[in-house]
């Protein structure tokens, strides 16, 4: 199996991009990545996209994007695993290069979410849950995470303030990220007094509806220097796992076993321990998600993720910086693009290009991407040479 | 005389929401005290948006099955009498039969005869068993009654259901006599595609309710060679609190005989469900040997009369599941008119 490097990253300002189409959003990010890698031809492409059919009425995404990227006849594939589609696209590209099938692969992700109403977006996102046994009864995504939050609060005494501290920390970080959708700070009181969505989660506990895309250029590690003068980022670990689609079928309502298994697999492949990780981007679709993910990955003992965030341990200058990019919370959450954007952030950090939000001495970074209420998860570990 | 037939299981369901007469009167500038006095109504049950004739029927039947302790697959027929079947075309009975596990070997029909459809279902179910056609048959009386905003009916139209499993084994209340009485009397109707029924005002009283209830009751008493004093209990259709008491007194029944099944003052008019639910409330307390006189009434118009006799099997099952008065009086939620209007889909959304 060949080692794989990331030689280019592309991302643009995320948000409600009223002027930009689904295809333009993706092509802009992809062109950025191609330019960053200083290449113009690809061997293949994987695009993470959760629900373009419901968001913009367009399936057959691979054909549209390859063509508009100026790569007609490219071997392009759309990858779907709900909000983990992006992370999975990276894994697919990684496998293709590791196998020796291709050399230059773009792994990207895109979602255009604002061409439907809020109700339409709620509906589209809910398709990542069990349609017959969750959504049929009125479950929404905030609702499912709220169920986890309430169970976590009951079992471990996680507090409303601790949930809010995740949003405060991520908005602090996001305020330093020029590409973030909401690069403003929020206060503890602001989060706690924001509009109620699904008790106990309020609007500022939730990641937003976002248009956006991100892209990575992958190549065999031994060829990386042919293309780039920047620090070469090696993908050393990739872990992928699924879990039950329905939250109620999980072994526990307060841990995410799919995340745990994916994390262990990634660490094993990289030959690393958790202690080796300098920073991590996690899938904070809701504040409670960051807390439970940080525990399931093993950074904190079960029930201590909230207290750790509140104590500042996960800040950029903390013991283990979590979501220096601002996370899904502040940066935005164009679902199919999120997993790729997390890796874009890790690359910026490992290259030392993260500006004001730079994590000091960042050598090894982890990105954890998650689908649905935890029904799938993809974890990658990146290292700088 | 042929082998006895009767009720082998019964159950009731009532939505937990209520609205008081004053709350409705306030909105329409009506005189609440005179309504309460004139109609003897205090409050009525209100179905939330997720309750309808089908769901009420299922819950009432689940209670009937708990009392009957029979295999639902042995039920050979299901009849639901209602004037608020959720579908204009598609039976309520199929859903109910499926929910209780009585499909697929079962006969089914939805019935409609204004407020008498429920007793019709009971009558047909009894007849099947009496004829030896089947071991058990299910008659359900259920409604989420409609009353137009500001109309007199709005103060009474309520929701509830009673289910009766008829059979020959382990009878709780044996049927002694039945009688039906009917003429063509247009006192109350609802045309196709209309939301709310219309009524003919005071014509619904003397020439309609009273004529048919009395006509049926007198014929039934005669058939049985009985007098009002022979009965421990009596229950009549109760479009309001006043009519059943009055018709009972006209026949010679006393308040004491009527009041156990007199649910209207705090339940309202459950249309098809009215007298059957009253019967269920009586069965909750009746003792072996007690005879029960029952006459329903449905506009259009007609009455079904039944004489029941409680057996020694009844006391053992009275408390195996929630009783009628508990459903009527416990864990109630009072609604304001706005929420009531939302629940009953009376708010016009212009989009």
């Amino acid at each position, binding site marked *: 199996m060949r080692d794989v490097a990331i030689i280019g990253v592309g991302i643009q300002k995320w948000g409600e991009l009223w002027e930009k189409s689904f295809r333009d959003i993706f092509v802009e990010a992809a062109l950025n990545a191609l330019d960053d890698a200083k290449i113009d031809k690809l061997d293949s492409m994987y695009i993470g996209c959760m629900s373009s059919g419901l968001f913009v009425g367009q399936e057959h995404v691979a054909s549209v994007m390859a063509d508009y990227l100026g790569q007609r006849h490219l071997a392009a594939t759309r990858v779907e695993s709900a909000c983990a589609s992006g992370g999975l696209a990276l894994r697919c590209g990684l496998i293709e290069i590791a196998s020796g099938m291709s050399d230059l692969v773009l792994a990207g992700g895109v979602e255009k979410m604002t061409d439907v109403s*809020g*109700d339409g977006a*709620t*509906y589209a996102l*809910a398709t990542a849950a069990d349609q*017959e*046994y*969750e*959504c*049929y*009864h*009125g*479950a*929404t995504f*905030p*609702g499912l995470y*709220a*169920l*986890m*939050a*309430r*169970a976590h609060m*009951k079992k471990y005494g996680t507090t409303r303030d601790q949930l809010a501290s995740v949003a405060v920390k991520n908005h602090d970080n996001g305020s330093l990220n020029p590409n973030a959708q909401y690069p403003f700070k929020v206060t503890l009181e602001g989060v706690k007094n924001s*509009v*109620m*969505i*699904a*008790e*106990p*989660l309020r609007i500022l506990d939730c990641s937003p509806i976002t248009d956006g895309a991100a892209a990575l250029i992958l190549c065999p590690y031994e060829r990386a220097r042919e293309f780039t003068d920047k620090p070469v980022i090696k993908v050393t670990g990739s872990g992928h796992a699924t879990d039950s689609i*329905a*939250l*109620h*079928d999980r072994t526990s*309502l307060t841990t995410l076993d799919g995340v745990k298994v994916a994390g262990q697999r990634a660490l094993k492949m990289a030959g690393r321990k958790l202690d080796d990780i300098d920073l991590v981007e996690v899938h904070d679709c809701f504040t409670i998600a960051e807390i439970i993910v940080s525990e399931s990955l093993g950074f904190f003992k079960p029930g201590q993720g909230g207290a750790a965030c509140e104590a500042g341990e996960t800040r950029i200058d903390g013991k283990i910086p979590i979501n220096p990019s601002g996370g899904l919370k502040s940066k935005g959450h164009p679902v199919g693009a999120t997993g790729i954007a997390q890796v874009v952030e890790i690359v910026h950090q490992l290259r030392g290009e993260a500006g004001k939000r730079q994590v000091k001495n960042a050598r090894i970074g982890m990105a954890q991407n998650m689908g649905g209420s935890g029904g799938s998860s993809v974890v990658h570990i990146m290292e700088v040479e | 005389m042929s082998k006895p037939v009767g009720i082998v299981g019964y159950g009731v369901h009532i939505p*937990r929401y209520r609205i008081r007469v004053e709350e409705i009167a306030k909105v329409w500038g009506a005189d609440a005290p005179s309504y309460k006095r004139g109609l003897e109504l205090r409050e009525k049950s209100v179905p*939330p*948006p*997720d*309750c*309808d004739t*089908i*769901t009420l029927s*299922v*819950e009432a039947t*689940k209670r009937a099955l708990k009392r009957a302790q029979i295999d639902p697959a042995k039920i050979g027929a299901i009849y639901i009498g209602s004037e608020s079947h*959720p*579908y204009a075309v598609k039976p309520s009975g199929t*859903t109910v039969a*499926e*929910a209780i*596990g009585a499909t697929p070997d079962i006969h089914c029909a939805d019935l409609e005869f204004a407020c008498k459809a429920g007793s019709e279902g009971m009558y047909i179910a009894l007849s099947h068993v009496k004829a030896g056609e089947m071991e058990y048959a299910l008659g359900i009386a259920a409604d989420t009654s409609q009353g137009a905003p500001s109309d007199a009916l709005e103060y009474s139209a309520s929701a509830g259901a009673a289910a009766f499993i008829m059979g020959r084994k382990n009878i709780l209340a044996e049927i002694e006599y039945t009688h039906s009485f009917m003429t063509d009397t247009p006192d109350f109707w609802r045309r196709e595609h209309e939301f709310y029924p219309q009524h003919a005002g005071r014509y619904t009283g003397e020439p309609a309710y009273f004529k048919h209830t009395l006509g049926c009751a007198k014929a039934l008493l005669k058939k049985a060679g009985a007098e009002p004093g022979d009965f421990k209990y009596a229950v009549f259709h109760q479009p309001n609190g006043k009519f059943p008491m009055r018709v009972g007194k006209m026949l010679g029944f006393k308040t004491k005989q009527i009041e156990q099944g007199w649910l209207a003052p705090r339940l309202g008019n459950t249309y098809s469900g009215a007298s059957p639910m009253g019967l269920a409330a009586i069965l909750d307390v009746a003792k072996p040997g007690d005879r029960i006189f029952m006459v329903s009434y449905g506009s259009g118009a007609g009455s079904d009369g039944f004489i029941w006799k409680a057996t020694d099997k009844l006391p053992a099952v009275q408390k195996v599941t*929630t009783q009628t008065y*508990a*459903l009527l009086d*416990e*864990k109630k*939620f009072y609604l304001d008119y706005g929420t009531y209007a*939302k629940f009953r889909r009376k708010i016009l959304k212009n989009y």
Partner: protein
Amino acid sequence: MNPARYAREIPHRYRLEAAKCKKCGAVFFPHRLICLKCGHRQFETIKISEHGKLETFTVIHTPASDFKDQSPFALGICKFPEGVRITAQIVDIDLEKVRIGMKLQVEFRRIQTDGHAGILSYGYKFVPVI
């Protein structure tokens, strides 16, 4: 709601029918074709009990469009004696009084209404024990 899609779930939604593995006894709701625990492929049909215990809940204030008129409503996960958990709405309760650990019972309710003319969808909701 597509009628065929709705109708095929009726045994689960109306009667809470579950599949019990004939080999290891594990219970699944809804049914499965292969046992998650032991891989056996034969099951018997059992009924889930009427009463469950609430393990977690939320009150949804921004529901999907089909549930707008019911907002806010409580949604909870109950654990049943057979070992399965089920997600459903909790109704007929003061939303302030919902508590983890409380006993709830299953009641038959209308779940969705497909516009003015589509089919009516029924199933289970949780209500306080009466």
